[in-house]
């Protein structure tokens, strides 16, 4: 039995935002895969829960020009299967494949995974290499925050209590971009990340790296980009030495709470492996 709380079930986004203005202490629920565990354990004790399940606006994936928008209540299962995602941002499908398990993926949402802000939230690293923004809406205004500025510390973000994470938006990577995602955990599947790593590289027609992104989840209190490592690759034709340098900078960039030596070695080795693979793909 869960502790008692009241529920509101708004049918539209506008209604939901109005509710959050009137009751800033209300807790939004989408898939519930984090929230119900936290309520049951006593970590969260909401008086009011706002159910987002009926808000269709939050469940869309749509393309506006070169920008893709993924609604906050889109499930991880949908990311894995959606043809638009697979075509325009395959790294998200790759991430979703390693996310928890089928039963959880059918409920867990992108917005919930980000807004909960667990250090091991798998979607964070993959979205960071896409330079994604999160859209935060309140009854008064809608703002966009780069995902790299969204996380403050574990389980804390810049989202205000009257705001909802309504969407994640990013520019669709060019065709000369290749990306890779890998998750390391205690098992192959249905586990929490020890390390999430995502890389994306864009190579121009003369083999120069125009853009490099390396993001690391579960390796620091919040998901981070290894910007020093990225900078060593950009503006040049990355050779093996540059990849090695980037990989060791990525390993240095993390600040894990526990198991730091292990995680540094994992990040170093995986950054090297994934960068090589992505560079090959982008050049091919």
């Amino acid at each position: 039995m869960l502790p008692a709380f009241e529920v509101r079930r708004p049918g539209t986004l506008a209604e939901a935002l109005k509710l959050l203005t009137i009751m800033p202490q209300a807790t939004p629920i989408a898939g519930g895969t984090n929230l119900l565990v936290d309520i049951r354990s006593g970590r969260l004790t909401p008086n009011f829960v706002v159910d987002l399940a009926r808000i269709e606006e939050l469940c869309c994936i749509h393309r506006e020009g070169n920008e893709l928008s993924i609604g906050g209540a889109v499930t991880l299962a949908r990311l894995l299967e959606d043809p638009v995602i697979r075509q325009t941002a395959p790294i998200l499908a790759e991430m979703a494949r390693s996310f928890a398990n089928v039963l959880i993926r059918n409920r867990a949402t992108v917005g919930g995974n980000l807004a909960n802000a667990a250090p091991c939230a798998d979607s964070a690293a993959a979205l960071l290499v896409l330079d994604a923004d999160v859209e935060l809406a309140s009854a008064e205004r809608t703002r966009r925050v780069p995902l790299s500025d969204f996380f403050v510390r574990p389980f804390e973000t810049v989202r205000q209590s009257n705001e909802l994470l309504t969407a994640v938006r990013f520019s669709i990577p060019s065709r000369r971009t290749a990306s890779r995602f890998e998750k390391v955990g205690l098992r192959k599947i249905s586990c929490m990340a020890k390390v999430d790593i995502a890389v994306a590289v864009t190579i121009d027609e003369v083999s120069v790296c125009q853009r490099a992104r390396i993001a690391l989840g579960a390796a620091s209190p919040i998901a981070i980009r290894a910007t020093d490592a990225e900078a060593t690759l950009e503006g040049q034709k990355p050779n093996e030495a540059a990849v090695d340098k980037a990989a060791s900078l990525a390993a240095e960039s993390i600040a894990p709470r526990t198991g730091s030596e292990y995680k540094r070695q994992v990040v170093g080795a995986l950054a090297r492996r994934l960068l090589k693979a992505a560079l090959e793909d982008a050049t091919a």
Partner: protein
Amino acid sequence: MSRKKKIQIALTVNGRNHELCVRPNAVLLHTLRELGYTDVKNGCEIGECGACAVLMNGQAVNSCMVLTIQADGVEIVTNAGLGTTGRPHPIQEAFADAGAVQCGFCTPGMVISAKALLDRNPDPSEEEIRVGLSGNLCRCTGYGQIVSAVHLAAERLRELASRPSSSQDKERQETAPAEGISSHEVCD
């Protein structure tokens, strides 16, 4: 607790309609068991074990992680909704034939995950079966037999589907006869 306002909802479970007046904090797992669908098992209540798995509009989910009010207007199918002892679903039959039921506690959830998998992928590889069942734990650790059971079920379902005259049989197999009555409860 009772001062929290109850909410009127309607859902379908194994083809039966239920109109319910539920507490906002009611969890689907408990609601289903209270309605008599005790084939939905309460294992961990933190989404780790899959014993409480049900189909919610065709998708396999952990019912311990769904508020009952979120199932308003939804169609639920539990293991018992797939078949009965007298007329088991081919997946249930395959579990029995392959020796995939040991203590049996994980079986209803395993069958539900297998059903969701085979609905989307009628001919899964071993890897795909293991991934499809990755949300379900078997503490007897009889995974080998469970994987064999899903292979066997897939084979039998494909065979059934390929027989033109079998569509009616199959349909009968897929939906167990609705026993008992639907509930009708109204909030004050």
